Structures are given as C-alpha cells and as structure tokens.
C-alpha cells in the first residue's frame, strides 16, 4: 500500500518557493553562507508573491520575470543542464550546450516558477546545512498551513568562485536534476539528441499556448 509516489507531487509550490529561493542581497561584501543565501532568496520571493496575491494576481508576467531574475542570480543553470544530460553533455558542441542550458531554464520556468498562482502563504523553515569540499546542502521544510502539509526540500549548492550557487533541488528525497536526467536519458537512448531538443521545444510551445 505504500505506492507512493507522491507527496512529491506537491512540487509546485515547493519549487516555486524553492526554486526560487536562493536569493542574496546585491552588493554583499562578505560571501554569504549557503543558508543565508537561500534564506534571503526565500524572503525576496515570498514578498514578491505576497504582493502578487495582494494585487489580485493581476501582473502575472511581471511577477514571473521578477522571480526569474532572482532565480538567475542563484541557480547555476549551466551546471543543472550539464548534470541532467550527464555523459551526453560532453558530446555536445559549446553552442549546443548553451542552447540546451536555455531550454532547461525555460523548462523549469514553465513547470515551476510560472505557477505563481499556486502560492498559498507557505512558510519556510530552515533546518541546518552541511558543507563539504565546496559543496553544501541546505535543509528546509515548506509548510502550508492551509493544507496542513510539511514538505522537506533540500537545496544542493556548489561553490563557484566564492559564490554559492544552487545546482539541484531535492523534494522529499527526489532530486529534480536526477528526475530530468532519467527522462532525457530515456529519450536519448531511444532516439537522438536532436529529437530530445525537439521534444523539449514542442513542450515549451505547448506550455506557452495554455
């Protein structure tokens, strides 16, 4: 009976906040710790979402682009794209890698960050971090009081040139990057890289139509 699958399905909001989360103040002089980064980002995004809710969800496009601007500061999209393609990444030319990175970013944007309507006053609790050899994990829990749910969300960060950047989000034990990697692999093994790109482009086009 434990056929699971899913609380992780509650991804949306998690990522929404989550994904979003990692913001950091502009012009910080002292490098922020991973937790500080995630906390700041969470606060910034929460305030954007609160405002959006207050404005009766009128300025959707603007809200999404504000959130994406914060996400861009804290997500290492290239690293995420690279990990999601795993061994196939090296086989791609630099301009293909660049193109794929931008497709990956759009995929995440549409899937999670574009879901600003799903925000329901979630609270984020920080439960500690671990740092090891330039990598770190920030553990959080996202609480939705109206639903009575608590979802563990971990952010994996990597130190790149003194700056902590998120390269994966793990919701209830399910890594976002690993999940996309399994899907990409399955397509790549059955067909080709061009086909994978086409499938992603088709999906993005379909998302945008809705």
């Amino acid at each position: 009976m434990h056929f699971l699958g899913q609380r992780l399905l509650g991804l949306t909001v998690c990522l929404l906040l989550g994904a979003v989360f990692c913001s950091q103040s502009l012009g910080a002089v002292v490098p922020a710790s991973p937790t500080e980064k995630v906390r700041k980002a969470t606060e910034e995004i929460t305030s954007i979402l609160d405002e959006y809710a207050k404005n009766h969800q009128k300025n959707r496009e603007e809200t999404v682009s504000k959130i994406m601007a914060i996400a861009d500061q804290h997500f290492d999209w290239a690293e995420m794209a690279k990990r999601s393609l795993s061994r196939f990444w090296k086989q791609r030319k630099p301009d293909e890698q660049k193109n794929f990175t931008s497709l990956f970013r759009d995929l995440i944007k549409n899937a999670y960050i574009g879901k600003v309507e799903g925000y329901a006053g979630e609270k984020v609790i920080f439960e500690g971090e671990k740092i090891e050899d330039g990598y770190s994990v920030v553990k959080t829990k996202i609480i939705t009081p109206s639903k009575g749910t608590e979802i563990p969300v971990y952010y994996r960060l990597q130190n790149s040139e003194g700056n902590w950047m998120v390269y994966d989000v793990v919701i209830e034990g399910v890594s976002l990057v690993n999940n996309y990697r399994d899907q990409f692999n399955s397509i790549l093994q059955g067909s080709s890289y061009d086909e994978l790109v086409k499938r992603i482009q088709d999906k993005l086009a379909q998302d945008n139509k809705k």
Partner: protein
Amino acid sequence: MGVLFFNHNSLASDPAQGTSISVNASEKTEVLPMPDPLQGMNRAFYKFNDKLYFWVLKPVAQGYGKVLPRPARLSVQNFFTNAYAPVRLINCGLQCDFQKGSTELSRFGINTTLGLVGLFDPAKNWFHLNPPDEEDFGQTLGCYKGPGFYLNLPFAGSTSLRDGIGSLVDLCIVPSYWVLTHYPAAYIATGATILDVVNRTSLRIGEYEEFKRAALDPYVAIRDAYNQHREDAITK
C-alpha cells in the same frame, strides 16, 4: 488499495527527525535508475491509471470534497493513518529501530484514546510527538535487497518487485485485512478502503496534474520519482 500515485500515509510527517543526508563531493548520493524490463506492460497500466484518475477518481474526490469540509477530511485521513500504525510499528521492530517504534506506539496509544479513535492528533499537538518517517515491509526488505524492477499496476500505481511483495505482507497486518477475511464485514472493509483513497485524493487534487505538467515523459518521471523516493525512505 493504493491511490494510484499516492501512498496511504500522508499527513504531515516530520522528515527532519532522524534524517541524515550526506553531502558528498558531487554526486555520490546518486540513485541508480530502476530496471524496467516490463516497460510495455507498465506503460499500458500507467495510461490506465492516468485515465482512471482523470475520469473517475478526481471527479469523485472533487464532489466528495464539496460535501465534506477540509478539517473533516483531515480527520478522516488521521483516522486511517492511525489505523495503519500497527504496520509501521511492526516494521520499525523488524528494522530494529526501537526509538521510532516507541514513538509510533505512544502516538497510537494517545491518538486512539484521547484522539477519539485517531480522528485527531493530540500526540502531536499536545505531546509534541511528531509522526516519524513511516516504515513498511518494502523498506524492511530494502535493508537487504534492491528493488528488483519497476512495476506499474492497475489501481495500485508505482511499485517494484520488492515493494509489491512488501505491500502484500503489510496487507496481512492491516486491520482491514482481518475484517475482509471474515465475511459479512467484507463490504465494510472495501468501503473503508475506497473512502481512504477518495479522501486522500480530495486533499491532494492538483498535485499529480502539476507533476505531469513539469515532465517531458510523465511515465519515466514517475518511475524515477518513485525510485528516488523509496531509496530515500530506506535510508531513513
């Protein structure tokens, strides 16, 4: 008995308790993909479950949700979660996790009495006994064995060879099984199971939709999410 894609235990668990994650340089934490030799059959059943959700379960759960307010549905969910405590307790014992087992036992005692047969959760609200990570027989087996291979079964949804066997074993511990095997109550047990499924679904409408929307290939996405989630549960 499964709820397509959802497991029966849900409410707020406290994953922080006893959670240990390792931050390894890069990706040592990686989960190996689950073998899927029966993909053709699994995909067919996945499609069936997907339709079952959109055509039957979801509309029924939405109607049910309109009739019964959310707090009442949370109480129904608490009731079933409490009723399954023996399954979790026994598996804590089998895994020699006595600390978790004693929490389960205390919670079961308190919620069954003060919590009015489990409808409420005074163990958490008054005694700060948060529900521990849930144990089942699939996880007990997981201490020794890998998942074998992936299965997607009609009505039940995602499982694996190991977890499917685990579910059958757990079924024998679930109170409803005993009722089920003693006839005139069979209808009651079946009804209770359906109520549990519909009730839980009513509390998570939209989650599967979102998950599917984020996926390039929902079947592979669910298979992988199931795999990662189970591996994570086993290490807890």
